[in-house]
């Protein structure tokens, strides 16, 4: 025993902690303020959605998907509906695909709004939080007008949409796009060139492109490391193949690059929404769907680009019952969370919250 014998301090960050974005628990082993080890403990929000889905009929599952990534319900709806449509080979009308694209891009903006707000709040910039919520409210208003709900929308159905967009809705979406474009510089003024923000995020939580692929990161964390992988581009779904947009990538793979990637995604989303509104075709919003949804026996995997990353559904149907035989989700939050222990080792306590924020997890989706 040396003169300066030191103990590691073990602290439980979470499950009740202001900045673990829900009920994440991180067991940190600290040497002073430096993190020497971290264990991520999950499962505090486990509701058994996958198992539950094996006991609900196919349309009811849409409601369950709302409750996975509850800040981005529309993309979860979309992922599930498209998987079933793929399994049943249902043709979705073009108008419905366009509206789905608009909805999921609005959802992406709303989700990134929430991410940017909480992430900045974690690093101490509280005003950004309220600015982002101000704009997110407008998106929720649009969703409310479309489907009546503000959080768990259940906004899609197998084969299309539950209903057409209300009259004048498209114009309101365009107005929102114009407004939001003027708001992005407001966030940037407060953060992008802020010295403190840069010091807090640059060269923190660096992960190389190769490592990111090895861990299985997807979405903005992967693109921040310079890998131009985007399901919307690589395996287009909905109507993404009809629009022009860029996939922003970072270079350093640090928190700052992930931040820049998401900010650019705001702009790209606006670009997609504008194109979709401009070219919105007429026609029905529901395809030819049988009264009783009973997909043929078989299995399929289908992935979409949710705001957090690649959201995949693997569904097995036995062709006899009116429930899925096996229902499995590949949630981006869960896979991205794997990087956390690796990222925070050797950093300081203050960086832990910055890193949890930068990978943008939603515990509803991690635990399901």
């Amino acid at each position, binding site marked *: 025993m040396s003169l300066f014998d030191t103990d590691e301090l073990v602290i439980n960050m979470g499950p009740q902690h202001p900045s673990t974005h829900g009920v994440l628990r991180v067991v940190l082993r600290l040497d002073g303020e430096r993190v020497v080890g971290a264990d991520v403990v999950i499962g505090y929000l486990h509701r058994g959605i996958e198992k539950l889905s094996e006991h609900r009929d196919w349309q009811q599952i849409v409601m369950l998907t709302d409750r996975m990534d509850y800040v981005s319900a529309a993309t979860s709806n979309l992922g599930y509906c498209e998987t079933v449509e793929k399994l049943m080979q249902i043709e979705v009308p073009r108008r419905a695909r366009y509206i789905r694209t608009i909805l999921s891009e609005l959802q992406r903006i709303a989700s990134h709004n929430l991410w940017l707000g909480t992430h900045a709040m974690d690093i101490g910039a*509280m005003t950004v939080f309220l600015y982002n919520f101000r704009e997110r409210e407008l998106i929720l208003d649009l969703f409310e007008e479309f489907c009546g709900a503000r959080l768990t929308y259940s906004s899609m159905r197998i084969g299309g949409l539950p209903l057409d967009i209300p009259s004048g809705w498209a114009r309101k979406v365009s107005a929102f796009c114009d407004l939001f474009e003027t708001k992005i510089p407001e966030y940037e003024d407060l953060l992008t060139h802020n010295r403190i923000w840069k010091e807090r995020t640059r060269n923190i939580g660096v992960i190389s492109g190769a490592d990111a692929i090895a861990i299985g990161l997807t979405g903005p964390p992967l693109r921040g490391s310079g890998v131009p992988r985007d399901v919307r581009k690589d395996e287009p779904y909905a109507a993404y193949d009809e629009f022009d947009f860029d996939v922003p990538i970072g270079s350093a793979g640090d928190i700052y690059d992930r931040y820049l990637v998401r900010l650019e995604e705001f702009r790209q989303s606006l670009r997609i929404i504008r194109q979709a509104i401009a070219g919105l075709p007429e026609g029905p919003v529901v395809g030819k769907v049988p009264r009783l949804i009973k997909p043929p026996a078989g299995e399929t995997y289908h992935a979409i680009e949710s705001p957090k990353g690649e959201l995949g559904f693997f569904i097995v149907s036995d062709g006899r019952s009116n429930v899925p035989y096996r229902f499995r989700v590949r949630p981006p939050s869960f896979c991205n969370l794997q990087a956390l222990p690796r990222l925070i080792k050797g950093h300081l306590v203050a960086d832990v919250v910055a890193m949890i924020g930068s990978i943008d997890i939603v515990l509803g989706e991690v635990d399901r």
Partner: protein
Amino acid sequence: MTSMGWLLPLVQILIVLNAVLIAVTYMVLLERKVIAWAQSRLGPMRVGPHGVLQPIADAIKLLLKEDITPARADKWLFTIAPIMSLVPALIAFAVIPFGGHARIFGRDVPLFIADVNVGLLYIVSITSIGVYGIILAGYASNSKYPLLASLRASAQLISYEVAITMMLVSVIVTAGTLSMVAIVEAQLHNHVWFVFVQPVALVVLFIGGLAETNRTPFDLAEAEQELTGGFHTEYSGMRFAMFFLAEYANMIVVSAVVTTLFFGGWLPPFPNVGWLAFLGWIPGWMWFLVKCFVFLYVFVWIRATLPRYRYDQLMRVGWKVLIPVALANLFVTAILKVWL
């Protein structure tokens, strides 16, 4: 001195103490309102018109709340820690000159409690005691987050005190006195506010002041997002309120010191410019309050704008930027003082 000579200081202390406590509670309202406006919100609106009675409601709430002492806490230290934090913040006001002299009921009454000839050093030493409240709160809570926070806070206070004290020495050298009243008078005689003589000192002092009062961007000790609530995580009720009061009282102290040292205290702007003499009709203490208010506003403004530094960055700013700058400033000041 008349036979009632002891009464005057007593009355002064009572007035200042109450005024400060009221100012502190309304400082909280100011902060909530200003931040709300910065964030396109309204802030408190329910209690009284535009929420003007909110501080009273808050005070009543905190007074009536259950005062919890954690079972494993060090009870004695847990009790005295908030007191050790609040008392220095309040007694620092003893040497702050709110104004020159005024005639009240035909008497010549100074608008400060005491003009100690070591006034400035007194403030520095008194505020250096305040750190005990924070350290002991962290220790006595017997909890990990408060302990971490109190270590952060004390390291921060000690480091920034060095820069602050050195900057104060620059001002002292310029003014040639330690007395707060004499410093204001020196600015009158030199026909210039010291902000124009010592601009670097003002900047460093204000940054140091932000750190001393644990305000954004140096609010690591109460970083809610990292350390839940910081050193007062385990506190509730009145004892929590004491920490709260201490923080805001310290902000007022810093504003008052900055006003006194750099902005001519109770003097109206440019007292020596003839055609601006009409400004002298406004009483000095009002000028003082207005100037203080400006700095309090800056405190709030910064909080609404900036993110938070990390612990090691904060120490780096303190030791590698502020202290060298302070030393250089002191050096230059001393040379100029001797040669000019």
